[in-house]
């Protein structure tokens, strides 16, 4: 710990500062969302750039020469900087930035803006700490920092009873899962005599006892709540549905990745021990959880009529694909899971923002109401279509590259992992049903009032409703675009478009990401964090 220069904590400092400054501004009487959002966005951007700079300073391709002081030894304290950790920090900050920018377009004089941006910083801070923890207790506490903030974020709009209900449900389940995690940690301390994550890579004298197995099992359950694994997923749908779209984006894109990294940190090193010893049952449990999660998530998503609930279930199924990477635990699998995590951030972050944008444009909650969105909000709908195709794993998108990498790693590892890959691929084929349904409704069905459907008044906010009555006379292209941007806000519009563009760009040219992730995954596996 002595070797880590204080400058290394600068990103965390920036994020903490964003929280404090937002609350300070609130206390000084600032009211406009733009003030809070500006502070938060700028500092998060600073932290994001710092992490990127860190990644450049410690070139990922040459990790073998990473200074020992930065890597730290097995017993060097609760903090370690790994390349994968830095990558995930970048990911968390990316999500926070996306959410901060995307919600700049919400109501300007919303009294909750300060709470929202302040707690966003705090939640992000917890995630950042997770990504550098080398100690189980530190890891669990960091998760709490983040989770406690999100409890409030889900329910801070007090007028909204659904939000309050979601918040309450989230809180109770969260507290339960925390208790389970800490119980597991205490059992592990009993078995190993330490809570250092690196120590878990070496089985205690006399092999993994039942104590350790139960400990790991409990951690799997406790962290499984965070990663929304089936059967610990019940809370997620209600919470994603009840929270405001930006918060859902944060939960789905950010908090879930935090759970993923916690799984990496706790389980990757141990998987090999499991493989060699009596822990095989836990490995099978990991693989089984992955398959059950993706299957149940997909089957449930098939039956949804509510867009947010559909996205929530699809998010659950994505957690299954991510977990598959942990069960396989080869460099390729880890690298693939990270790729999929990046893809998921863009896809789910973008998708929930689209829901927010659609709400702003007067579209209701059911999928049917997205009818004809392709004509009403052309750019947003096209971006949404790209994100959905990416979620379905169609090539030329980052979602495909991630899935290919994870499933390819499973096939490469051979043995029973091939069945995991087959299960994953069949699931991804299954998911085409409901993603395809949304595409069909957005593009192939007539917009309300245009087709044989019962005519419904267009929402007044849309700005183009006056042209509805004129047959076959669509407003000029520029007009639609301007109306679209005015309706959903330029920041949100830009973020949604950006997510889609990045999904395609990295889908066509994933090389830099893959090379960085390959090196980071190898280092992570070698170090055992």
């Amino acid at each position, binding site marked *: 710990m002595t070797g880590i220069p204080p400058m290394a904590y600068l990103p965390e400092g920036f994020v903490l500062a964003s929280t404090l400054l937002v609350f300070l501004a609130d206390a000084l009487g600032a009211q406009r969302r733009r003030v809070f959002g500006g502070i938060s966005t700028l500092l998060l951007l600073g932290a994001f750039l710092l992490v990127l700079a860190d990644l450049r300073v410690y070139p990922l391709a040459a990790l073998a020469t990473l200074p020992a002081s930065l890597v730290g030894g097995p017993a060097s304290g609760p903090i370690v900087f790994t390349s994968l950790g830095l990558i995930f920090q970048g990911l968390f900050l990316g999500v926070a930035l996306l959410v901060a920018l995307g919600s700049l377009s919400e109501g300007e004089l919303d009294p909750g803006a300060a709470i929202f941006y302040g707690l966003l910083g705090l939640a992000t801070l917890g995630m950042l700490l997770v990504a550098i923890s080398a100690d189980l207790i530190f890891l669990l506490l960091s998760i709490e920092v983040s989770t406690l903030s999100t409890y409030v974020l889900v329910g801070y709009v007090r007028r909204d009873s659904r939000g309050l209900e979601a918040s309450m449900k989230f809180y109770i389940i969260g507290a339960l899962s925390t208790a389970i995690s800490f119980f597991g940690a205490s059992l592990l301390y009993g078995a190993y005599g330490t809570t250092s994550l690196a120590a878990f890579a070496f089985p205690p004298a006399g092999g993994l006892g039942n104590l350790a197995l139960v400990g790991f099992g409990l951690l799997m359950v406790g962290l499984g709540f965070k990663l929304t694994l089936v059967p610990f997923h019940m809370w997620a749908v209600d919470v994603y549905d009840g929270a405001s779209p930006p918060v859902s984006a944060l939960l789905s894109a950010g908090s879930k990745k935090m759970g993923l990294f916690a799984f990496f940190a706790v389980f990757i090193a141990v998987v090999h021990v499991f493989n060699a010893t009596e822990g095989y049952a836990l490995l099978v449990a990991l693989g089984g959880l992955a398959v059950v999660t993706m299957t149940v998530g997909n089957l449930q998503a098939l039956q949804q009529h509510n867009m947010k609930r559909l996205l929530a279930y699809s998010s659950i199924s994505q957690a299954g694909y991510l977990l598959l990477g942990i069960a396989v635990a080869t460099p390729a699998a880890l690298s693939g899971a990270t790729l999929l995590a990046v893809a998921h951030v863009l896809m789910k972050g973008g998708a929930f923002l689209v829901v927010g944008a659609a709400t702003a444009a007067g579209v209701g909650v059911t999928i049917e109401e997205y009818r004809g969105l392709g004509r009403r909000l052309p750019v947003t709908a096209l971006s949404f279509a790209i994100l959905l*195709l990416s979620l379905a794993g169609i090539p030329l998108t980052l979602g495909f590259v991630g899935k290919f990498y994870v*499933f390819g790693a499973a096939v490469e590892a051979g043995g029973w992992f091939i069945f995991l890959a087959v299960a994953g691929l069949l699931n991804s084929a299954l998911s085409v049903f409901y993603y395809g349904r949304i595409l069909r409704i957005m593009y192939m069905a007539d917009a309300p009032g245009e087709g044989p459907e019962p005519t419904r008044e267009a929402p007044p906010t849309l700005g183009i409703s006056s042209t509805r009555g004129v047959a076959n006379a669509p407003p000029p292209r520029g007009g639609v675009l301007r109306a679209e941007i005015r309706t959903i806000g330029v920041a949100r519009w830009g973020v949604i478009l950006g997510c889609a563009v990045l999904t395609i760009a990295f889908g066509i040219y994933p090389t830099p990401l893959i090379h960085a992730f390959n090196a980071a995954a190898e280092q992570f596996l070698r170090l055992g964090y």
Partner: protein
Amino acid sequence: MLVSPLTLLLAVAFVGAGATFFAGPKARWVAVIFSGATVAVVVYTLTQFQLNFTLSYQLLEVNHWFTFAALPGAPGISVDYAVGVDGISLPMVLLSSVVTLAAVVYHWEEENAPGPFFGLLLLVNAGVLGVFVSLDVLLFFVFWEVVLIPMFFLIGRWGGARRHYAAIKFFVYTHVASVVMFVALLAMVFLGGWGTFDFVNLYGLQTLNQSALSSVTQVLLFGSLLFGFGVKLPMVPFHTWLPDAHVEAPTGGSVLLAAVLLKMGAYGLIRFAMPLLPVGREVLTPLIFFLAFLSIVWGAFLSLAQRDLKRLVAYSSINHMGIVLLAIGLWTQVGVLAAVLLMFAHGLVSAVLFMVSGSMHHAYGTRDIPSVGGMSAYTPRLSTMLMVGSLASLGLPALVSFPAEFSAFFATWEGLGLLVLIPLTALVVTAAFYLWMMQRLSFGPPRGSTLKTHDLPTPELVALSLMVALVVLYGILPFLVAQYIPASPLFHIPCFSGGGGVCP
């Protein structure tokens, strides 16, 4: 690294698709310019292709794309942007680009969102070209899936009455098949320990690693590939998506579906399953023959029962692709040559027939065969096109299908002896349903609402004339395309049946 003309081809095709998509009301001009440019690049490629060169793929270009991390201790596997052609893929490239140009011309008067419509048509073509020129397993799969998306939208947005159902069915059916195919391809590469996704190396390494894949694994993998490619082909019993998709798709979509998308399945079988998994092939060859005979007979008899012209043509595709599957299953030089030739022929002929179905719908307001008659009197041009297409499809000499079908039956006689009577009998049924259909449509007494009929509009006439000219040209001079086919590494190596069963 030298830039291959194929890269230029892909660039023109994809840029063209994008430019057309956003071109607005002038989209048809952009579309015809870019699809014409695509054909021009293909013609240039033909001139660069060496006919007597059978050692490897030609016009190669290989660039590193990204590395797949390997298990600890092994080098990572390079995933490349690798393109090249040989005699098997080149006719398909030619077919796809020509048919796309004709489809664009045919739809000249399209008024329903022409930009996206033509853009998606060109995107289908771009994806198909990618499938046929890519020499890397992953790149192949990327393009394979790229084809799916625009076709889904073409059917679902511009299709007929039941378009939504047909679009989703098409998407899910073929996507499931591609997923199975993809996992089998990956398993083949990883379990075989081949350490490369590159086709060029795959053929060379395959002998070295014969023992890496056990017989059972080979049979399983071959079965998966047969399913994956067979759905696309389509072979009975996995054909049910085809009639719906074909009938509901707009004419241009049907044309591309029948003319080129079906060929992707046969191409995949020739490229991967047959040469790379010899043990699996030997074990499952009887199954291939059975499914091929089933497709041939089933397709022929179902066609006989159709009232809708488009549906009739769709079912006849199943019949023809069954013959292709049979010829591939024989796995002899003549068989593969016949299969590729037949794929090319069927591409041209089915394009004619689907265009005729579309024009009949325009002219008579229906595609129902019993309710229209006397076409030769009211719409002589349409009737002529219908007759040329039908006669070509039933294998009349001097039209393009004849040399192909003749070679296929010859190869079948060589390989299976008297079993050739099964497809020949089906051929009689084929001839029967085409002749019966022509008799009722063209020559019967005038029926139906003939008041507002009009003969072929100019764009449709131009497109159909182009296709019919090619049908006649390649029918009289089949060597113009057949000469390319043996210029393939497949023909150089004695890996066909009777050649020891192993590709060195």
